[in-house]
């Protein structure tokens, strides 16, 4: 099978079979902030077949330290519309589908989105998203705070739920500190895992990768 030359370097790394799996993959990216803006970009660059994007926010100045799809002239504009435009310009062969509206109790992911990237910024939305996912589908969760973060893969129906694992945790009051480099590192690790899931070999299934940029430390927490 002939692949587009844009994939030449990654094909050398992971080969044709994984590239084929990625190109037939469908991913819902929920949240287009510090994590989602880079995750969406890396998935589009890798050649994921179809990306559903979900975010009802608008670009604000405090976003610009870490939300790598947006620039100064975007302040006040819809993240969803900007992300659709930018990702299409990065890879026009990836189908980009915006999902408008809020993530609430009535939200249902599209049927063909068998992999969901939780790039959200609060637990309530995360638990709503998880509840809406169909059985057997995969959820890759990530969170970042300060210079720390985590990435974890769960399979609906087979793994513990995120809501059970994080039971009792409440959203911190006020603005959450986040550095640009921490968001980018966690988003990069999350993208790596999303591509591993698409390739049929998740590395973080029921295994939380915990990252501390503060002292360049990585550890695993089995869940």
């Amino acid at each position: 099978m002939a692949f587009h030359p844009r994939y030449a370097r990654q094909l050398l790394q992971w080969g044709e079979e994984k590239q084929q799996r990625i190109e037939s993959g469908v991913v819902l990216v929920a949240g287009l902030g510090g994590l989602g803006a880079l995750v969406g970009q890396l998935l589009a660059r890798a050649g994921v077949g179809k990306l559903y994007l979900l975010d009802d926010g608008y670009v604000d100045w405090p976003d610009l330290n870490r939300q790598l799809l947006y620039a100064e002239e975007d302040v006040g504009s819809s993240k969803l519309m900007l992300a659709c435009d930018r990702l299409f310009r990065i890879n026009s062969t990836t189908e980009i589908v915006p999902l408008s509206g809020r993530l609430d109790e009535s939200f249902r992911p599209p049927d063909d989105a068998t992999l969901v990237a939780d790039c959200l910024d609060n637990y309530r939305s995360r638990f709503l998203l998880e509840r809406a996912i169909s059985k057997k589908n995969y959820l890759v969760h990530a969170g970042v705070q300060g210079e720390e973060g985590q990435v974890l893969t769960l399979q609906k129906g087979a793994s513990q739920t995120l809501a059970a694992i994080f039971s009792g945790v409440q959203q911190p009051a006020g603005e959450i500190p986040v550095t640009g480099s921490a968001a980018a590192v966690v988003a990069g690790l999350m993208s790596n895992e999303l591509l591993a899931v698409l390739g049929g070999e998740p590395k973080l299934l029921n295994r939380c990768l915990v990252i501390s940029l503060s002292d360049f430390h990585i550890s695993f927490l089995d869940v």
Partner: protein
Amino acid sequence: MLQVQFYSLLRLLLKQEKLELPAVAEETVEQLLSRVQQQIATPFLQKLIDCDGQLHAGTIILINRQNIHHLDGLQSRVLDGDVIAFFPPGAGG
């Protein structure tokens, strides 16, 4: 033995990733925490439990992968061989 694991900001605060302690019969998570505090120079209990003895909402405690909220909370028993993990997850995105 009990294996006690600290993650993220707790690991940084305590400058310690793991601690092994002998199991004590009938011990609860709350009692284990007091014992851990005696072993570690850095005061940390106030980061986990408020003055009313309630668990702060920023850290999860897992016994053998299970959140203690689904057991008996801080009164959950820990048994020989258990792995007890303390993890304050990152909330933002």
